């Protein structure tokens, strides 16, 4: 994997993430929440949480040593802005560790999008629908 490939694939992943979070805005009764007022889309978070629920994703994450309950709580504690950041800037967000991890993380995102049928990067994945 060279950096050009990384940049291309991550942009693609970002586009996919944006696409799947666009629709779905239902009217509801009650107080307008602070988050709504900031015009942030809570859908982002829900969709990321749903991705974590899928068995294939769960297995892939657990193989990397990520505890699923913790992963979900992490998503819940992130702001919508940060969810979007994670989704879109995987290859640019540095962690206090190894650069190789970035590639692994990107691999996971592509695996997820593959499984959902949005991409077909890996030969061994089969879309769920």
């Amino acid at each position: 994997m060279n950096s050009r490939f990384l940049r291309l694939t991550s942009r693609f992943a970002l586009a996919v993430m944006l696409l799947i979070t666009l629709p779905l805005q239902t009217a509801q009764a009650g107080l307008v929440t602070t988050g709504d007022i900031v015009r942030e889309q809570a859908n982002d978070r829900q969709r990321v949480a749903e991705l974590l629920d899928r068995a294939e994703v769960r297995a892939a994450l657990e193989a990397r040593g990520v505890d699923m309950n913790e992963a979900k709580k992490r998503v819940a504690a992130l702001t919508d802005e940060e969810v979007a950041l994670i989704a879109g800037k995987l290859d640019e967000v540095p962690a206090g560790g190894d650069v190789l991890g970035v590639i692994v993380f990107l691999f996971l995102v592509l695996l997820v999008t593959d499984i959902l049928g949005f991409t077909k990067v890996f030969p061994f994945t089969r879309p769920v629908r």
Partner: protein
Amino acid sequence: MAKARLGAGLLLLLLLAGCAGTPQLDALRQAAPALPPRVELTAVPFFPQESHQCGPASLAMAMTFAGRPVTPEALTPRVYLPAREGSLQVEMLAATRRQGLLAYPLAPSLADLLTELAAGHPVIVLQNLGLAALPLWHYAVAIGYDLPQETLLLRSGLTAREVMPLATFEHTWARSGYWAMLALPPDRLPATARESVYVAAAVALEQAGEVEAAQTAYRTALARWPGNFLARMGLGNTAAARGDWREAEAAFRQASLDHPGEWTAHNNLAWALMEQKRWREALEAARQAIALSPGNPQAAETLRRIEAALAPQAPAPGGRKRRQERHGDPTPGT
């Protein structure tokens, strides 16, 4: 982090020291901000950081100092990504919120960093101790500085009190995009607080489910910026979440007075009044909301509910005086 890698990184750093400037330090030299010459927050505890665990350890030090004692071990599952041998910055912010503390991302400014230290706030910083092309990311906690000596004091790695030249720090900090954050009790305002950044941090706290801490943070924001709409609405929403409809009403009413054009203020005021069964006043507020945002489904639903509640009741016009029909109000006002 391996000592050898760190050593190699520092050696390379020395080789490259002449390549890049230190614009922020230069600016400080030009026009020194009104700061005490020396600051050291000796009360910040020290947790030696094991390999790759600099994120959890740095957080634990700042959180413990902020009055929420926690060990690095307890934080590790929340911020540490085993596959990446490190922690993402966004998760450092998120973990802070889960502890009921306000996570404030600092502006990328050395002057701001020093100002926070002078105000008694330790600062978590992300450094790249390696090179841009060969990064060696590292979190540490800045606890003080010495301006005449041009040094920064850090709790870093296995060193309880690292004395780092400001120039060296700026080089390593620049490569992380000058990333820094505060973990503050929600009743404390950062010395360098910017209105929108602070209020956004309070909203994030509310969204993380820390309602009580978020409410305190909104109050802190309003004490400084009384006209901030988002903070006022947040105060109302957190009060409502705690079942305190009278305080919620007061906040929404203030918001609707300060910002009469915002339909959400009138809509939420209508709900706070409805919860107190003050239907007539609620009706008025709901009509305001729909007038400001015609066709808005949420405002329409608010109005419909109030009208439905009023219809069967059909009170004699003028027969009702201002009665306080409070019920089910578990919390007495503040």
